[in-house]
């Protein structure tokens, strides 16, 4: 009873009559002229426009019931004629029906009300069901995000306008990661110059069906993920970045191992380095930045993460994302040059010599049998 009482603020009798009448009128109006917009909204705001309207939930939390008209005005829904009852489907009359007993907290209420999103956005809603966030909810984390946590409630606007908004949205929960990202080469370009090319969170992690990035599958797919931009010659040219890094990585010891695991044992964790092991994950910096983990000054320490005990010469074993060259990697260059002629010479010399011997032996046998 308490719920109903708090949910139904005391109103003077004349206002009640007025409300009933106007709801009927609106209903009539909707039947007669369904195209007419912003009817219920103004109507609901009669009460919900009041700044002190609130109720207490069974948990004791106070739920403000005030809806700001300013918020509504900027929302993509309201401005397109999608009004309160489109989402608040359970409210059809006044007094409003009581909340279900299952709803104890504000979070319970939010998790129940956001189901309305799937009415229109079923595709994205379904995608979220496969996400890491949905899994967290299933395993009991009620704070794992629902549509409204990222998109807003009454003030839903374009989630990626400006693009930096995506990253700040994620930072509401992933604050630590955001701290790393904001100073990275990607994050800084995004936040300071609204760069259209650098990845925001969702470019790498996906949008609605965000997957766990700690799985062997995600790890093995990392080079491919980075290559979506870093193998794009046109895009890389803009920033003076070598577009062959991914191709050359795939030929390296690390790359060969990783692609082998990816195709054969995708579910088995492996330790061979992928891009992020050396460059960092969220705090990726330009290689010439003195703080970068792949800056020549820091490279050995980075290698030692996986190759403990490696000495200062060790970094020379890494051909980098470079073709072998006589100046940069002379040992590898001259070895490759040697074999590029040695292999065909041995192969063809053996074949020709043996072929000549077979011909000669055959001719001899033919002659002998004819004579």
């Amino acid at each position, binding site marked *: 009873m308490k719920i109903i009482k708090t949910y139904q603020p005391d109103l003077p009798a004349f206002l009640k009559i007025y409300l009933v009448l106007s709801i009927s009128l609106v209903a009539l109006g909707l039947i007669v002229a369904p195209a007419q917009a912003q009817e219920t909204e103004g109507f609901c705001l009669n009460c919900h426009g009041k700044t002190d309207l609130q109720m207490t939930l069974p948990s004791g939390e106070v739920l403000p019931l005030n809806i700001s008209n300013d918020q509504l005005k900027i929302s993509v829904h309201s401005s397109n004629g999608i009004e309160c009852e489109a989402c608040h489907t359970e409210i059809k009359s006044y007094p409003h029906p009581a909340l279900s007993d299952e709803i104890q907290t504000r979070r319970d209420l939010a998790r129940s009300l956001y189901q309305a999103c799937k009415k229109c956005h079923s595709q994205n809603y379904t995608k979220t069901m496969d996400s890491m966030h949905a899994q967290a909810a299933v395993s009991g984390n009620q704070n794992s995000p629902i549509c409204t946590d990222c998109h807003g409630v009454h003030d839903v606007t374009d989630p990626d306008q400006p693009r930096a908004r995506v990253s700040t949205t994620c930072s509401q929960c992933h604050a630590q990661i955001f701290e790393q990202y904001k100073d990275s080469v990607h994050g800084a370009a995004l936040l300071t110059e609204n760069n259209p090319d650098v990845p925001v969170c969702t470019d790498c992690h996906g949008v609605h069906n965000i997957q766990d990035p700690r799985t062997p599958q995600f790890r093995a797919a990392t080079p491919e993920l980075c290559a979506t931009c870093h193998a794009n010659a046109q895009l890389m040219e803009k920033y003076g970045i070598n577009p062959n890094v991914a191709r050359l990585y795939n030929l390296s010891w690390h790359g060969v191992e990783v692609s082998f695991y990816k195709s054969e044992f995708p579910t088995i964790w492996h330790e061979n380095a992928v891009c992020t092991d050396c460059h960092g994950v969220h705090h990726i910096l330009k290689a010439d930045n003195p703080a970068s983990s792949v800056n020549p000054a820091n490279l050995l320490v980075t290698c030692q993460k996986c190759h403990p005990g490696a000495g200062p010469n*060790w970094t*020379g074993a890494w051909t980098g994302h470079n073709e072998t060259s006589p100046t940069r990697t002379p040992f590898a260059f001259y070895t*490759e040059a040697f074999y590029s002629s040695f292999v065909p010479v041995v192969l063809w010399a*053996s074949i020709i010599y043996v072929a000549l*011997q077979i011909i000669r032996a055959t001719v001899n046998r033919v002659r002998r049998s004819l004579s």
Partner: protein
Amino acid sequence: MSPETRQTSIQSPIQIERYFKRFSLRQRLEHLVLLLCVGVLLATGLPQKYRSMSWSLSLLSSPERLERLQTIHHIAAVGLTLLGLYLAIRTVVLLFQKKLSGDMLPVVQDLRDAGQMLRYLFFLTENKPKFGKYNFEQKFTYWFLFFSIGLMVVSGFLIWFPIFFTRLLPGGIIPAALHSHSTEAVVTGVFILIWHFYHVHIERLNLSVFSGKLSDTDMRSYHAREYERLVNEANLKGNEVSLDTGEKP
């Protein structure tokens, strides 16, 4: 070192094949160990090199099997290295004792033989060169494998213990060793398959390295100069036969 002969009398109506001792038991065992090690190394190495091919995937069906394959490869590698060290030490010792046989050393006659062989193959002469104990083809096989296996052992240890070796050597040798190890293996494999197999299995079935002996007929047709030398030696000594393996006692 007594020659193994089954010849008794030339007047005999029955043709009795005479055999010449070609390899000692020790040499035959050395070849067997070499064959085993190289075989195992190729069988466990090539699937690693061509790991994305379907035939190697059937072998490498799990990371554990890949690891086991590498372990077998390493064991065979140690075996081959020990064989190489043993031969090297033995060679040095024999050299100091002045007992080292020079049969395998390339000499100018080999070049002449090769020239005549080419003329013969191009139908410019009807006479095959008369070869000594080891012909130029066999010497070429020996020295090709000598350098090839040497390179494989060195590059193999470099990529097996890269951290250790780069403490002393520049890091750039590691990718070079990796490329060399991987390519040299294929070159060696192809060379053995085409060159060596033709000469010992197809041209004629020459199993002397397993049996240790070579028939009189084979000696006369493939090692004529050595045959003549041995017969002359026997005649000088007045013996009927005194055929040496070329190895000093």
